[in-house]
């Protein structure tokens, strides 16, 4: 028989339940020890959780319109979703990464990639708002992104799909040798965080799957896993699995940086959006950029090498010391670990095993540090605890395997429920991991929770990794499809989390910063309502003289200066969404009334004891009426 009998089973569950419960229990009024930021995958957004409680605190809209706050619907935030393909109100968000200084988390910003229409976003970790989105030209399926170097010099975006560069009309079956794989290094301004494409390395047309920066001694290098080195353009599940080994591409970005700083590289025409949201004006603006600097890897000797790695490696992870580069061969049972020191020695002695498109291939045997033979199936991703251990997820065998760096010995394995993708240890991809918990993010939920029809939220499992053996202590649902996550100690962010926007710093051109500053201004068929709100009324709350066919801009400023007192705004027949306006903030909603009548608006956020009284009316007259524009409060 495979299990022990009922009663015995119950009692041992009971004993464990209490100790696991103590480990994850955060009492009412108490706060969590860690923040965790889980990508929302196809929700396009980023969710904020607490660990160990698994409580969700917030969903931060990034690449998707979000009616809850009006992100992507308000006039100020619509520009954030502009691209060279027009307004794209959705994306597939994958890999969040927190900014670092000296290889340690510094908690200034978190970056995340949009896969589908290639973009990188930067989110402030004091306002928890998306501040910037830059489109990545010449890229497609922006998957080996958005990983940052150890002083946040660059956020890196690698293309999954090779494409013609520049894009052009050509037969698909001429892919081989003609398509390119662009690896984009986006500089991050040290003070403001503002992103700018420094250069694009135009690599051979492989698929660049995942990446991580070197750290410590390997700082200055970046490593990308590849698959489809066969350069197949159809039925990849067969044709991209013909080679026994693909490559990890090792890029010496410092060398390329030096090359471009000395005038190297070729500027080519491009067209991509750069969207920046300013905190002072509460407004986003789009600039279309028209040029990008490209680098041919063969023109920079000593900058790019290929490390042969078995079986279409997926995750590409670098240990906290920077010595080990781990290729997780997803169609293999084993992990391949390369040594940075051995790689340098092989480069030094020029021991190459041929080349691909002019890029030297190192010899597998010369650079390999070891192989982890775990017996698991389908390794995907590895993180580190800072105590010399690594933790790898196995998709097919649904487990997390703990193994030792250097000896490659398997120390422990625990099942996940079910089919785990990424895992996350707070700081687990930096020089200083906080090795107390690992979160496993699973793709399949099935029976973990009460069923909710065919579609279930994905499940995550929390393991205590403070001991020799991992212990599963909690199970919680996530939102969207969490691919990767980033986490950090609560004390890094909580003290500097913004509470209000100061009204006297509000530079929005339509802001109303004084109680008597409200007005309504007509400009042809455009009407601008300069409105303010405070508990528990709008100023003005009666507006007449609006006509069918007008385009009415409600510019609304929240006059509260009190933490956590937002107000909402909506009006009947609004074709966008509500607005949720933070204290001291101004947001704008456009309303185009189509019917004559008297239409109410109200506050959507339960703000006060007199919340239900926080309302007003707009009188809409026929297009040809002569009703004069007037507005009032309390008349």
């Amino acid at each position: 028989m495979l299990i022990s009998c009922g009663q015995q089973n119950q009692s041992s569950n009971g004993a464990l339940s209490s100790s696991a419960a103590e480990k994850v229990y955060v009492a009412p009024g108490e706060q969590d020890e860690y923040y965790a930021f889980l990508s929302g995958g196809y929700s396009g957004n980023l969710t904020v959780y607490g660990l160990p409680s698994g409580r969700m605190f917030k969903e931060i809209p990034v690449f998707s319109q979000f009616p809850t706050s009006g992100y992507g619907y308000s006039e100020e935030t619509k520009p954030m979703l502009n691209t060279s393909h027009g307004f794209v109100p959705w994306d597939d968000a994958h890999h969040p990464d927190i900014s670092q200084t000296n290889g340690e988390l510094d908690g200034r910003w978190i970056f995340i990639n949009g896969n589908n229409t290639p973009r990188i976003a930067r989110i402030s970790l004091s306002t928890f708002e998306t501040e910037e989105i830059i489109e990545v030209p010449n890229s497609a399926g922006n998957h080996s992104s958005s990983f940052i170097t150890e002083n946040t010099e660059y956020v890196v975006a690698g293309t999954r799909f090779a494409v013609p560069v520049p894009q052009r009309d050509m037969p698909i079956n001429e892919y081989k040798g003609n398509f390119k794989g662009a690896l984009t290094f986006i500089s991050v301004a040290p003070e403001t965080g503002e992103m700018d494409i420094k250069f694009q390395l135009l690599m051979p047309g492989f698929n660049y799957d995942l990446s991580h920066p070197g750290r410590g001694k390997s700082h200055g290098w970046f490593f990308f896993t590849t698959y489809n080195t066969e350069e197949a353009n159809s039925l990849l599940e067969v044709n991209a699995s013909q080679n026994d080994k693909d490559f990890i591409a090792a890029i010496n970005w410092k060398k390329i940086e030096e090359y471009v700083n000395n005038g190297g590289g070729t500027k080519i025409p491009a067209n991509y959006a750069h969207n920046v949201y300013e905190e002072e004006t509460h407004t986003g603006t789009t600039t279309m950029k028209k040029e990008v600097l490209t680098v041919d890897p063969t023109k920079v000797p000593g900058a790019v090498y290929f490390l042969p790695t078995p079986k279409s490696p997926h995750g590409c992870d670098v240990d906290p010391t920077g010595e080990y580069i781990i290729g997780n061969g997803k169609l293999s049972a084993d992990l391949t670990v390369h040594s940075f020191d051995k790689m340098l020695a092989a480069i030094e002695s020029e021991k190459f095993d041929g080349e691909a498109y002019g890029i030297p291939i190192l010899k597998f045997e010369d650079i390999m540090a070891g192989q982890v033979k775990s017996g698991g199936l389908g390794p995907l991703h590895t993180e580190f605890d800072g105590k010399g251990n690594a933790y790898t997820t196995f998709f097919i065998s649904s487990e997390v395997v703990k193994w030792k760096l250097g000896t490659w010995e398997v120390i422990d394995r625990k099942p996940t429920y079910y089919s785990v993708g990424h895992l996350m240890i707070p700081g687990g991809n930096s020089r200083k991991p906080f090795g107390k918990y690992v979160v496993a993010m699973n793709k399949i939920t099935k029976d973990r929770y009460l069923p909710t029809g065919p579609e279930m939220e994905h499940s995550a499992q929390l393991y205590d990794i403070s001991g020799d053996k991992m212990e599963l202590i909690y199970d919680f649902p996530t939102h969207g499809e969490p691919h990767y996550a980033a986490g950090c100690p609560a004390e890094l962010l909580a003290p500097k989390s913004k509470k209000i926007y100061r009204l006297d710093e509000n530079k929005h051109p339509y802001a109303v910063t004084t109680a008597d500053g409200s007005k309504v201004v007509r400009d042809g068929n455009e009407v601008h309502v300069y409105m303010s709100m405070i508990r528990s009324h709008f100023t003005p709350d009666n507006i007449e003289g609006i006509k069918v066919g007008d385009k009415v801009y409600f510019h609304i400023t929240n006059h509260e200066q009190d933490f956590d007192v937002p107000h909402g705004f909506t009006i009947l027949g609004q074709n966008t969404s509500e607005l949720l306006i933070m204290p001291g903030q101004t947001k704008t909603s456009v309303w185009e009334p189509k019917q004559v009548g008297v239409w109410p608006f109200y506050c959507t956020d339960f703000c006060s004891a007199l919340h239900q009284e926080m309302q007003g009316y707009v009188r809409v007259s026929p297009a040809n009426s002569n009703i004069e524009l007037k507005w009032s409060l309390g008349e």
Partner: protein
Amino acid sequence: MKSTIKLTALGFALLLALSMGCKEKSQNTTTAAEPEESTTVVESNKGQAFIEDDGSTPNVLQIAIGSEDHTTLVAAVQAASLENALVNAGPLMVFAPTNAAFDALPEGTVEDLLKPENKDALANILKYHVTPGNYSKDFLKKFKKLGQANNQNVPVDVKGEDVFIGGAKIIGSVPAGNGIVHVVDKVILPPSQ
């Protein structure tokens, strides 16, 4: 030859009852839905293999379990604790030797492999029968080799209409919810590493 596979829900239910042992004492017959198990409690009854689901197309494990011609294979999968790997999203392609194929091995081989001390060797052989993929017999003619779950390649040979995987002939095929089962007439032994 498709008659070699007879899927019976009864067979699956019987196995569940057997593997759970004290089913009648348990309030919840789906053991995987119980609270978190202790790390000290045997975990072999946990995971996707043990979820009750009569609405979905049977997966490759359920198909093998339901076939009276694959009882040796099923016993071997259980001895190697590979149940959960076979119900994964995959896709998985399983080359399933019949009981007769196992009987054709030298006397004592199967009994030896089923011994607990040979669990790893058994798992290695069984994984050599599994490909991450889902291809029909016809489609397999496009391949020269397949990369198997034990990390070794197996050759694919075509003779007329017949397809041989590592020398074993495909004699029937059953599509599954998470892949496909190809019934083969021989046990495929991995080349020594």
